[in-house]
C-alpha cells in the first residue's frame, strides 16, 4: 500500500509547481505508470481520489497512462517476448527494459495561471 505515500509525494510536487507559477487552480494531472513500476494503477487512482480532498488537486482528475514493459537486447535490438528468459541468446547480453516501463512519472499538470 505504498500507493498512498506516492500520492503524498505527487500532491506536494504539484502544489510546489503551482505555487512557483502562482497558479490559481489545477485542472488535470497526467501520470504514466510503468508495468514494472511496482504501482497498482487502480490502487493509485483510489489513493489519489481519497487524498486529493482539501488539496489544490481537489478538482483535478488524474489521467493514468499505462506503459507496458518492453524488454529487448541492447546489442541487436531484438525484442524479448513476454515471459521469456531476459537475455539475448545470440549476443549473450542481459535484456534491457525500454524507458518508462519501470517508472512512475508525473508527466503533465494542467493549471490555471494569471
Amino acid at each position: 500500500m505504498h500507493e498512498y505515500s506516492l500520492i503524498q509525494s505527487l500532491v506536494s510536487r504539484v502544489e510546489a509547481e503551482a505555487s512557483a507559477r502562482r497558479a490559481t487552480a489545477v485542472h488535470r494531472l497526467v501520470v504514466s505508470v510503468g508495468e514494472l513500476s511496482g504501482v497498482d494503477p487502480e490502487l493509485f487512482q483510489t489513493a489519489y481520489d481519497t487524498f486529493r480532498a482539501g488539496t489544490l488537486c481537489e478538482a483535478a482528475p488524474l489521467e493514468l497512462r499505462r506503459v507496458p514493459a518492453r524488454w529487448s537486447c541492447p546489442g541487436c535490438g531484438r525484442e524479448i517476448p513476454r515471459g521469456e528468459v531476459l537475455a539475448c541468446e545470440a549476443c549473450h547480453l542481459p535484456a534491457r527494459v525500454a524507458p518508462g516501463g519501470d517508472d512512475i512519472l508525473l508527466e503533465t499538470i494542467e493549471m490555471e495561471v494569471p
Partner: protein
Amino acid sequence: MCATCGCGDTKLVPVEVHEKILAGNDRAARHNREHFVEQGVLALNLMGSPGAGKTALLEATARGFRGRWRLGAVSGDLATDNDARRLEAAGIPSRAITTGQGCHLDAELVHHALHDFPWRELDVFFIENVGNLVCPAIYDLGQAANVVALSVTEGEDKPLKYPVMFKAADLVLLTKCDLLPHLDVRVDTILDGLRRVMPRPQVIQLSARSGLGMAEWMGWLEERRAQVPRRSAGAPVHTHAHGHDPHSHHAHEHRHEDGTVHTHAHGHGPSAGHGHEH
C-alpha cells in the same frame, strides 16, 4: 492575464514536468550513498517476505565474520524491535526502525536512523527492510546492492508473481534449502522463473541452519566489500555538493593522481552542480 483585452482572466496551461514521483526519495538515497561511499562502508538493502529468513541469515553471517568484520544493521519492522534485539544478541549492533503502518523503508527513514547509530566504523551495514515482496522494491535507500531472500517454503512461483522485486535484486539468496527434502518444490523451477524476471540472475542456494552456501555468500560479500574504497586513517575528507542528475542510480569509480578513489553517481556533467573538496 488574458492577452487579448487585459480583462484579468486566467489562462489554462499544460506544464510538462516528466519527473519521477520518487524523485525526492531518490535525492535522499543519493545523499545516503555518498555518506556510505565516503566512509568506505558497504551498505546492503536486504529484502524478502516476512519469514523468509532475513534475520537468521544475518545471525549466521555474524557468526561467519566474527572477529574479522564489523557488521551493523537497522531493521524495519511494523510494530516490534524483535529483529533488532535478535541481531544485538548475535553481536550485530542494531537499531529498529519502527514504521507503524508503513510497508517499506524509504531513504529519509534510513537517513534519520544513521544519525544516532555508529555506522561509520562498520565494514558492512545491513538495512533489513520490512518483510514484504512488493513495496520495498521501488525505494532506493542508498545501498550498494539489493539482496533478496527467498525461502524455498514460499513456493516455486514467487519470482513470476513478484517480478518488480526480483528485477531490482542484485543477488537472490534461496534460503532454508535444508528443508528441500521435505518439500514438493523444484529448485530448477524457481531458478527458471528468476531468469524470466531478472536480466542478470545471480542466485546462491543456502541454509543459515546447516551452513550450506554460507561460504559462497560470504565470498560474495568479500567481493562487494573489496569494491568499496577503504577509508584509511588520515585520509582526506571529501564533501560533495548535491545536485546530480535525478535519473542516475548507479555509481562509478575513478582514481585521482594521488591515488585516492572516489565514487560518484552517474549522469552529471563535468562542471554541472557537482564538486568535492579535499
